[in-house]
């Protein structure tokens, strides 16, 4: 694999992603609006953490999910149905380099998301503490897990089904991922929710970004998803 074609592909992937209005809405619009709204308005009791301290880590998690699963999955699903993936398999770039370029583009978007959302959160009075490197590691792990799930949907379902399911998972994650409602308010759902990658991520980010240790169980759950997602995508992905 040569780097120049991959870089060119990643630049164009990034540009195309930023040109899609609906993608901008789920990757930037909704997270920004939710961050500001729930930082300012205490709709629900959020336990020991209040306002921006509770909502900021969850929104970072949502942002990672929106780009690595929703945006990547939907775009790849449609490219598959348009025969773009098939066509690029017939160029020197090849499929493996194409996937690498997509990952590069997603990393760029996530960096952009983290910068913008953190800046807004700081502006709203957020103090994330000193455990940032661990938090970044968790976000990367989650990105791998969600990216795998996104590609799994894109490579096995029709494009329209991927679109619906990815957006559906986004909403489900928003509701039971510990982003706007704390997990312990979910009652019977909580133990199920904790096994999902979204809640595992917020279970790690909440304590880390308020200066405490993250539970090992959450790291393990997230780690399992980070293996399960990409491996099943690699095994089951059909280019046509």
């Amino acid at each position: 694999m040569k780097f120049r074609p991959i870089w060119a592909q990643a630049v164009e992937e990034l540009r195309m992603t930023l040109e899609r209005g609906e993608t901008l809405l789920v990757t930037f619009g909704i997270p920004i609006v939710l961050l500001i709204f729930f930082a300012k308005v205490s709709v629900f009791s959020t336990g020991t953490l209040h306002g921006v301290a509770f909502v900021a880590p969850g929104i970072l998690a949502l942002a990672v999910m929106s780009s690595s699963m929703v945006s990547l999955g939907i775009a790849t699903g449609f490219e598959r149905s348009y025969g773009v993936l098939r066509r690029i398999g017939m160029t020197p770039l090849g499929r493996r380099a194409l996937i690498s370029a997509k990952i590069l583009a997603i990393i760029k978007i996530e960096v952009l998301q983290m910068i913008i959302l953190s800046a807004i959160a700081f502006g709203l009075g957020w103090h994330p503490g000193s455990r940032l490197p661990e938090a970044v590691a968790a976000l990367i792990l989650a990105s791998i897990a969600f990216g795998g799930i996104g590609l799994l949907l894109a490579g096995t379902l029709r494009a329209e089904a991927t679109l619906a399911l990815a957006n559906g998972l986004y909403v489900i994650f928003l509701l039971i991922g510990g982003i706007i409602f704390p997990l312990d308010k979910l009652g019977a759902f909580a133990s199920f929710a904790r096994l999902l990658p979204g809640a595992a991520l917020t279970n790690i980010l909440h304590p880390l970004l308020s200066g405490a240790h993250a539970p090992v169980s959450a790291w393990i759950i997230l780690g399992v998803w980070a293996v399960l997602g990409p491996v099943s995508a690699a095994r089951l992905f059909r280019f046509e």
Partner: protein
Amino acid sequence: MPAIEVRNLTVHFGDFCAVNDISFDVDMGEVVTLLGPNGAGKTTTIETVEGFREPGAGTVRVLGLDPVTDHSRLMDALGVMLQGLGIYPQLPPLRALRLFGAYYENPRDPSELLETVNLTHVAKTPAKRLSGGERQRLALALCLVGRPKVVLLDEPTSGIDPAGRIKVRSIISGLRDEGVAIILTTHELDEAERLADRVIIISEGSIVSSGSIQDLTRTSNAVRFQTTTPIDREMLTRELNIMVEICGSLSYRVLTDDPSRVIAPLTAWLATNHHEILNLRSGGDSLEEIYLAVTQPQLNDQRVRTSRISRTRSSRRARGG
């Protein structure tokens, strides 16, 4: 060494045999057309040559490489155009060509290429807003951006208007003159006749006929004629001792080794029996006649039927008028 070598290629989809023991070569600077009805196995053959499918049996070599195991090495030298597929709907032609150009060592200039395929006026229009013909020409440009030595075109002119077709044909001829080896598929005879150095007619997965257009059309000698009124074939056979076949509505064919001996008595007989001649020619079969004969042998019966129907119609018209 030929640019493309296909030896005893067989491809199965489950129980269905899509390609059955096909062998052919394509040299550098040669255009070979795979001609056949839809579902004949043309696209499957192309897909195997490009390495998208593995042969079930037999071998395929392109520039001496195995398209499956040496896939990435081969891609530098191969240009493909898939049936209306493989274009980012969001990308305008200029950006698409720049992107694809970045995959290759020594790409063609995107603007010049747009000029060549007549897309300069839509260089910045997203592909999804282009017409079918414009999209086809963009697909052709994408196929050529890397200066390929071997080009595979799956129905390159389908959905293109006549002006666009002429353009595409001239581009293909230009590639041949540069020494590019080209396989193209079509189900349009006209296309094959205009472009191909060699035609391979495929039907139900097998090669049923192949050769240059001249070779194919020289195989049989006949006198063909068309009249305005139906003739009595039995009477003609009785009186002139020649066999007449029906090959269309009021169209007839006499198979003979020596057309000049048939034409004079035939025209005299037609004049005596008050049949007006619409046209008359001697020589080999046209590509269309060969194609229909080899791909649809059952059609000869249909021809008789159609010709009967049209006779009834014309007699009705005659009565009415």
